[in-house]
């Protein structure tokens, strides 16, 4: 477990028309990688639930950060959805107590910022998996911090 201590940022786009294709997936290499994939994929349910709740619910929080999507025994799964319907999901080992809501929020902001840069890169074709080295290094640095 200690191997994956810290953030497990998964990044995936979900334009409705683009069927939640993962744009970017990154995790601290570990044997439970598959489990992450399942977890994150399932978390999309909650993301969509929360996003669709916007406007309907009386107290609709219009923030891009969706907060804790749901806890599992081993992970905490956080969500963030840009206005362009790009979904970011971060999975954190629940034993990791150093990351509070605010840290997570700022991690998401970082992700969003550099994703924006990716979008504005002429060599990036929207909807394709992200290959940008800059983005990569940003994510890795973030993951290092969280450990």
């Amino acid at each position, binding site marked *: 477990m200690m191997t994956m201590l810290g953030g497990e940022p998964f990044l995936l786009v979900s*334009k*409705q*028309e683009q069927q939640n294709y993962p744009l970017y997936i990154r995790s601290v290499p570990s044997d439970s990688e598959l489990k992450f994939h399942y977890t994150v994929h399932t978390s999309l349910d909650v993301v969509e639930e929360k*996003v669709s709740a*916007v*406007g309907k619910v009386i107290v*609709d929080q*219009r*923030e*891009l950060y969706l907060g804790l999507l749901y806890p599992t025994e081993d992970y905490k799964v956080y969500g963030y*959805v*840009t*206005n*362009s*319907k790009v979904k970011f999901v971060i999975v954190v080992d629940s034993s990791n107590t150093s990351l509070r809501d605010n840290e997570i929020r700022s991690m998401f902001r970082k992700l*969003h*910022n550099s*994703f*924006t840069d990716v*979008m*504005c890169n*002429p060599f990036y074709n*929207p909807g394709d998996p992200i290959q940008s080295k800059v983005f990569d290094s940003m994510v890795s640095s973030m993951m290092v911090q969280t450990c």
Partner: protein
Amino acid sequence: MADEALFQFLHNELIQYVYKSSEQGEMENARCITKLENMGFRVGQGLIERFTKDTARFKDELDVMKFICKDFWTSVFKKQIDNLRTNHQGIYVLQDNKFRLLSQLSAGKQYLEHAPKYLAFTCGLVRGGLANLGVKSIVTAEVSVMPACKFQVMIQKV
């Protein structure tokens, strides 16, 4: 947004280039408009990504359209859309009484036949922006007296 003048010059050159290349038979003239529009589309996608980075989540379609008319338009064209109308069935008409990209062309009917080329890119810009906000649409434009022009946005109901 780039400096206004620069943007306009670049835009003009863009059109020149596209139509030149069509004269050299690289594609038939009809496709130029489409090509320009597609360029706009990609740019719109990128721009909207930036512009909406720090805004709150949009309530609904109308909310989005308002954003386009106000913030988006201001950032790109240094002014707001003058008039937004809708039939509440997914059709919006954005009227700009002094559209930046036409204001240099003429004030009136002169060069009217050339006006469409100068609108295509913007049509794409809007479509791209909307698309990236998850609003699938078709954007067309009309000019009767420059530099005023109308953009019509038809939104696909999903």
